[in-house]
């Protein structure tokens, strides 16, 4: 294996793959704008950037998943075009996605050779496949038996199986998208050892991570993307954490400031010692003994990386998920045993993170989606009142400023920002006292984002709503929130006032955890 890579005449640090003026548009949306990007032989290049900065799009283009709208890819001085991942693989470029693409029911061996089975005289030559797999795993210092089913492996080991698969096709360039987001500290250690080993064998790596400091320990070059442009580039020795944060975040669009000029009420929502076990790893908790109290009229932001436990916390407060310990109090009343519907009735609602999966019913119209949570309000006896429903829907549309050509429009005809407002409007129509929003700004443009935040801010100031929203963009913490709670690995790591700065929030979130 790796004959290709070792026979390579490359000197360390020479550019092996470069992207020149790559642009990618989806309709009118420009995901990438004239990005230049170099991968160096035998070194790690890390791509930094916030959600939606275009990191994944760029990686998909480099690995042949997508084709650029314009610009070119140069591999060892030759312009190349990949029409598929197979073609990119043939040229030695492999990608390991954030969501692993292994078949959990098959063995390590079968996964490594999936789609490229070695065929001998009597069918598949399992012995040869096993031999090669064993050799690969030994080279990676992770001597897993080739016949072990992948589902029995820990996540970190599964990732190494993916790496083995990439190496088995003689990959010279390996792209890793957020490989550590689901790993424990010791698993990260193992992964980094493997990465160093790969480097010494002449494999060039592209690395994407939200764990900034962790990435800094492994990388040789840093490239920062923001809003589809490359905003900065430097070698490792020239940069530090502060430099990355400054270039990643840039100057933010004004998302408002915490509403003031009114007195906050008493604590409406109190969370006491919530613990949620991790279903995939016994003994580990995704949310570990979290307590939080929110007052009427207060806006609290929960900041944290992916996997910090924000979603699990908010969902369990709303009534979904399996809480192992802890209580949720609403107006001092324990609601931990109530169903989602009963909690909504008591005035606690959740706007979920993934609006396509959890927020909207795609087969129903805008109006039906808006009125779904508040049907009781327009039901008389057995039947619903159409007039009352129209009123509720019209009110919601104007309250949350949804741009639609009528309540009968299909939900798919709305833009992402307006779809999000439908989900918010639906929950607001139940006249809640506490609103939980899980990443309310995900996948919506900056204008819609500002509008959503303004709605929340008005709700808190005028109706005394208690608002809790989560985000993974630090700029959003420093907008309308009175209080910023930072979560890291299932725990509350720090709490700040509205006057916190970006660096200390990011440091507390574990973006500064050293592997």
């Amino acid at each position, binding site marked *: 294996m790796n004959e290709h890579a070792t026979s390579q005449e490359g000197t360390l640090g020479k550019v092996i793959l470069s992207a020149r003026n790559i642009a990618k548009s989806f309709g009118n949306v420009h995901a990438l704008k004239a990005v230049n990007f170099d991968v160096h032989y035998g070194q790690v290049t890390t791509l930094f950037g916030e959600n939606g900065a275009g990191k994944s799009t760029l990686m998909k283009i480099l690995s042949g998943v997508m084709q650029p709208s314009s610009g070119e890819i140069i591999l060892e001085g030759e312009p190349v075009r990949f029409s598929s991942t197979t073609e990119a693989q043939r040229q030695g470029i492999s990608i390991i996605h954030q969501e692993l693409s292994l078949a959990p029911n098959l063995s390590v061996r079968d996964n490594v050779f999936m789609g490229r089975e070695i065929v001998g005289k009597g069918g598949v030559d399992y012995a040869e496949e096993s031999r090669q797999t064993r050799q690969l795993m030994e080279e990676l210092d992770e001597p897993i038996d080739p016949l072990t089913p992948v589902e029995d492996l820990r996540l970190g080991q599964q990732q190494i199986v993916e790496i083995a698969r990439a190496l088995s096709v003689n990959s010279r360039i390996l792209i890793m998208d957020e490989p550590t987001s689901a790993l424990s500290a010791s698993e990260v250690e193992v992964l980094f050892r493997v990465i160093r080993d790969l480097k010494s064998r002449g494999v060039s790596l592209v690395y994407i991570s939200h764990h900034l400091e962790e990435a800094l320990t492994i990388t040789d070059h840093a490239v920062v993307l*923001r*809003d589809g442009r490359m905003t900065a580039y430097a070698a490792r020795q020239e940069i530090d954490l502060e430099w990355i944060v400054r270039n990643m975040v840039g*100057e933010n*669009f004004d998302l408002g400031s915490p509403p003031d000029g009114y007195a906050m009420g008493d604590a409406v929502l109190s969370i006491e010692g919530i613990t949620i076990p991790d279903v995939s790893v016994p003994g580990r908790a995704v949310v570990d003994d979290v307590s939080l109290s929110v007052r009427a009229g207060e806006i609290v932001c929960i900041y944290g990386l992916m996997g910090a436990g924000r979603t699990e916390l908010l969902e369990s407060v709303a009534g979904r998920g399996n809480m192992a310990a802890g209580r949720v109090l609403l107006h001092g009343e324990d609601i931990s045993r109530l169903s989602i519907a009963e909690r909504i009735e008591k005035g606690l609602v959740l706007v979920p993170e993934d609006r396509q999966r959890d927020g909207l*019913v*795609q087969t129903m119209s805008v109006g039906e989606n808006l009125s779904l949570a508040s049907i009781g309000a327009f039901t008389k006896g057995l039947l619903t009142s159409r007039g009352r429903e129209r009123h509720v829907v019209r009110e919601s549309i104007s309250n949350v400023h949804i741009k639609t*050509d009528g309540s009968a*429009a299909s939900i*798919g005809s709305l833009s992402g920002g*307006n779809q999000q407002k439908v989900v918010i409007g639906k929950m607001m129509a139940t006249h809640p006292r506490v609103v939980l929003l899980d990443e309310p700004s995900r996948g919506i443009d900056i204008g819609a984002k500002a509008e959503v935040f303004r709605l929340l801010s008005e709700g808190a100031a005028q109706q005394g709503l208690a608002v809790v929203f989560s985000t993974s963009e630090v700029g959003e913490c420093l907008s309308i929130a009175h209080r910023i709670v930072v979560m890291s690995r299932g725990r509350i790591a720090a709490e700040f006032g509205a006057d916190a700065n970006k660096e200390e929030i990011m440091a507390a979130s574990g973006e500064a955890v050293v592997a």
Partner: protein
Amino acid sequence: MSDVSQDNDNERGKLFGGDFDIKRVLLEGRAFFALIAIIVIFSILSPVYFSTSNFLTMSSHVAIFGLLSLGMLLVILTGGIDLSVGSTLGLAGVFAGFLMQGVSFEILGVVFYPPVWVVVILTCGLGALVGAINGVLIAYFKVPAFVATLGLLYVARGVALLMTDGLTYNNLGGSPELGNTGFDWLGFNRLFGVPVGVLILAVVAIACILLLARTPFGRWVYSTGGNARAAELSGVPVKRVQVLVYVLSGICAAIAGLVLSSQLTSAGPTAGTTYELTAIAGVVIGGAALTGGRGNVRGTLLGAFVIGFLSDGLVIIGVSSYWQTVFTGAVIILAVLLNSIQYSGRKKQQASSDGKTTSPQPESAAERSPASGSTAGKAGTQS
């Protein structure tokens, strides 16, 4: 739906000669046009087909499938499937027949002959029980709907065979002395010249229309099938909805069983075998999506009539029953094919409208595109 994309397409259709609209109308109303086509074709082929009496006879056959299909529609709208309805129909018929023979209480030494209305209520209760077992297995024990109802298909049929030892109850007429006459009224008799079975179908259909369009439960059914996760987070009692649709489907099957055994004035344990498949076919021909969330009563009724009028027509013109089976199958495949064309077309339209509509939704253009103000400058190396 009256969304922007469609209006745009309509306009475009007119620009390019206007045939787009016709295709669309044909596609959306396909069950209706299929029914018209069937009536026209068979009326030409056979002189007896186009007559009120024949339509009424055919309708009373349709009533059985129609009742099953309506129950099935509720289940399919939630994204489920109920394979047990044919067996439930058979079991209900046998159970009614058993009650009509009189229930003897040996301890008391008396034989109790329940009046017909009691028989009807008890039989519907049995159907509800079968449905409740289905629903609880599916909603609370997470047994896949296909498997749970397949199991009940066997169990219900087996129980029906056990109850009669494989024989058929022929004496369903009751007698005036025992006060249990009137069973034949359900399917055999006519009211204002219309078979009572057809009237029962109409009543159930109207009830279903009201249920789906005007009650919170109806909205819950659609939202559960459209996106159960979103529905649950919106406070919809998804599990209870699932149980209830199977209960209603079981009741519909029991009513169909009563009507059928009344029509035949006999109750056999094998009645209704494979009827579940015909019921599913009716729902699918009516345009409902097996993935849930899409479909309506009108379409389902049309679907049931298409199947009923087609198979009766084939009988009338003397086509062999083997060919009937082939034709029915072809119609079902064609219907599903058209369904997938319709739904994928809808998706494509939405996707293209996201890209192209600019005036009604100015935001969609800017979707996910970054703030213009913050990106200028700052490019280049810095260290």
